[in-house]
């Protein structure tokens, strides 16, 4: 047996400490961030209570006037923080994004994994991944200059005809800055994330299974429907959850195309909205000039709600994954 020198022992110690620090840091960062956000939110929670989640009025108050004291905390007179429009805006825009992105991403991934080969596949894959690398501000600019006018004058007026069936599609279409445009812009950003993950998953489906299907006389669609998609279902749900988290947290692009609605809920598909992340970004600086500090606390609480929602969707996805997992085990047995 090799003799253990002191040098090796030291190296081992260093290794242990280094791995200990590294391995514990993600947990600690999460805890530290959560702790800061929670502590910063407390005055706002005391001021608003549950009304923060159910209220519609967002008002920093008269920062050039007197201060008011309420529920043991100090805020600018008239301050009221109701985040419901931002919560709805975040959820609605991200769900629209997913409704567009899921089929697009799935079909793109299928083509990439099964239909394209060699250099064509290579180029298309690269292009999809490049799409993921485009900074969100660039996509936001495109959304503002190109997409919003198109939604206002092209897509929107066409979609209003569906309003006969679904009331939310009814006009007025407005300026194009709003819910639908935000959803489409988010979809553009989410598609590459879901596509790349799904393509990798599809490539892991054993060739024998697919060939077996074809051997049984299945069409291409049937192979996809009954063999490939069921095989990757868990991973696919995970990919969607990943995309959903990205869509909810996206800030800049939404800020640029959402119309920055304040104090009202979206009443149709084209209505201006605002997301939680966008509000935090656009209001933080002027919030810091609120002498009572309450505006910053309210934005912290908004961050807390966003954090909570992201965790919830993550848990929901995990739940779905484990459920399909059980079902599949049942089928196998």
């Amino acid at each position, binding site marked *: 047996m090799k003799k253990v020198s002191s040098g090796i022992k030291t190296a081992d*110690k260093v290794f*242990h*400490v280094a*791995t*200990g*620090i590294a*391995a*514990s*840091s993600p*947990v*600690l960062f999460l805890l*530290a*961030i959560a702790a*800061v956000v929670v502590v910063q939110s407390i005055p706002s929670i005391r001021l608003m209570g549950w009304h923060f989640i159910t209220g*519609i*009025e*967002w*008002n*920093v108050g*008269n*920062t*050039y*006037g007197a*201060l008011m004291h309420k529920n043991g905390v100090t805020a*600018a007179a*008239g301050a*009221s923080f109701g985040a419901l429009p931002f919560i709805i805006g975040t959820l609605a825009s991200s769900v629209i994004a997913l409704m567009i992105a899921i089929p697009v991403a799935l079909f793109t991934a299928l083509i990439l994994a099964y239909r394209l080969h060699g250099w064509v596949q290579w180029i298309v894959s690269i292009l999809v991944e490049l799409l993921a690398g485009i900074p969100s501000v660039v996509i936001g600019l495109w959304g*503002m*200059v190109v997409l*919003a*006018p198109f939604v*206002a004058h092209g897509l929107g007026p066409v979609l209003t005809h569906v309003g006969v069936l679904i009331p939310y599609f009814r006009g*007025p279409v*407005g*300026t194009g*800055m709003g819910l639908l445009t935000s959803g489409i812009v988010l979809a553009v950003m989410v598609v590459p994330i879901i596509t790349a993950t799904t393509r990798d998953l599809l490539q892991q489906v054993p060739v024998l299974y697919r060939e077996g299907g074809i051997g049984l006389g299945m069409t291409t669609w049937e192979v996809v429907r009954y063999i490939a998609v069921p095989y990757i279902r868990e991973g696919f749900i995970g990919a969607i959850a990943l995309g959903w988290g990205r869509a909810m947290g996206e800030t800049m692009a939404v*800020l*640029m195309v959402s*119309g*920055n*609605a*304040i*104090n*009202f809920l*979206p*009443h149709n598909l084209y*209505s*201006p909205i*605002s997301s939680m992340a966008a509000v935090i970004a*656009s*209001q*933080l*600086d*002027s*919030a*810091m*000039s*609120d*002498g*009572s500090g309450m505006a910053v606390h309210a934005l912290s609480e908004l961050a807390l709600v966003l954090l909570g929602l992201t965790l919830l969707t993550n848990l929901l996805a995990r739940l779905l994954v484990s459920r399909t997992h059980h079902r599949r085990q049942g089928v196998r047995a």
Partner: protein
Amino acid sequence: MGWLLNRTSKWASVTVMGLALTSLVVGCGTGNGGNATNGSGTSANGTSGGGSSQNVTLNETGSSLLYPLFNNQWVQAYQHTAPNVRLNAASTGSGTGISQAVQGTVQIGASDAYLPPSMLSSNQGVMNIPLAISAQQVMYNLPGVTGHLKLTGDVLAKIYQGQIKYWDNSALTALNPGVKLPHQQIIPVHRSDGSGDTFLFTQFLTDTNASWANTVKYSTQVSWPSLSTGIGANGNDGVVTTLAGNPYSLGYVGISWLNKAEQKGLGYAALQNKAGNFLLPEAVNIQAAVNEMVSQVPTNEAISLIYAPGAKSYPIINFEYAIVKQQQADPATATALKKFLTWAISTSGGDSAQYMTPVHFLPLPTSVAPKSQAQINQITG
């Protein structure tokens, strides 16, 4: 972290040590986080290097109304006056300017709004120093309408509150006889970021409309009346882009953006002043408003110049403020900052016509400049 329990106690203790160490690091990190996040021009806030003439970096963030003057004119011009001073400018909105200057992230916070009383009282030694006179115009995108519409603050308040919805509303046609206004919905555009322009505009509406004064009031960020036809845009450039992209829209834009906005086909309004006259934001009208207000400027220079009396006074004018901390990080920075601000308010320096005219600003009145100078002299290192 259940897996930890399966490992040896030594491994666990090492991990605990790691946790403790990391939490220390994290603790420090969160303390500084607030300052680091917005630093668009965060390069050293003080001196760098020695030598006989010390190199100093002065960072400015804030008002997008002051930005075209500061960045496009002053930065280059001051290079010749003081080659050892490096100026960085960023257009981030007055809200950012105020907060970053108060936090000490930047040396100069540019703002179209003076500091709120609560900020002045809670942050001893923060000053608002006027550098120049600026104005704001109300702009619109009305295809087929040439010339300048006549608008009042009261009508604007009603538009932004949703009481006037269409361009051919009787209140608008009554103000503009002979102008054929279309039956189209008005799209009111407001600033979504903390903005001195919002401050000026809402102050004008507060002075002219009682219901606005009772509900929305004025600030760099107000709780806009819920109006699903309206949209929020980021910065003066964002407002100009949004107005240009949306026919029948209306918004408020700082005067330094006037030329750019006119190139994009936007029109601007003649606004009714306190005396009842409709005036354009021309130099003579801005100057007239300044002349009415100079006698009232207090020592701390926090004053609204909105809706000045006088037949020829344009109603929306303001001081462009530098928000500055009295106590700077070191003597070299303080000296450089004092020198620069003194140059900026001088009519032979930053306030000379060659820099003012392209952005439609006016220099500080001769009776106000000494008050700014007195505040500048209080800066120490």
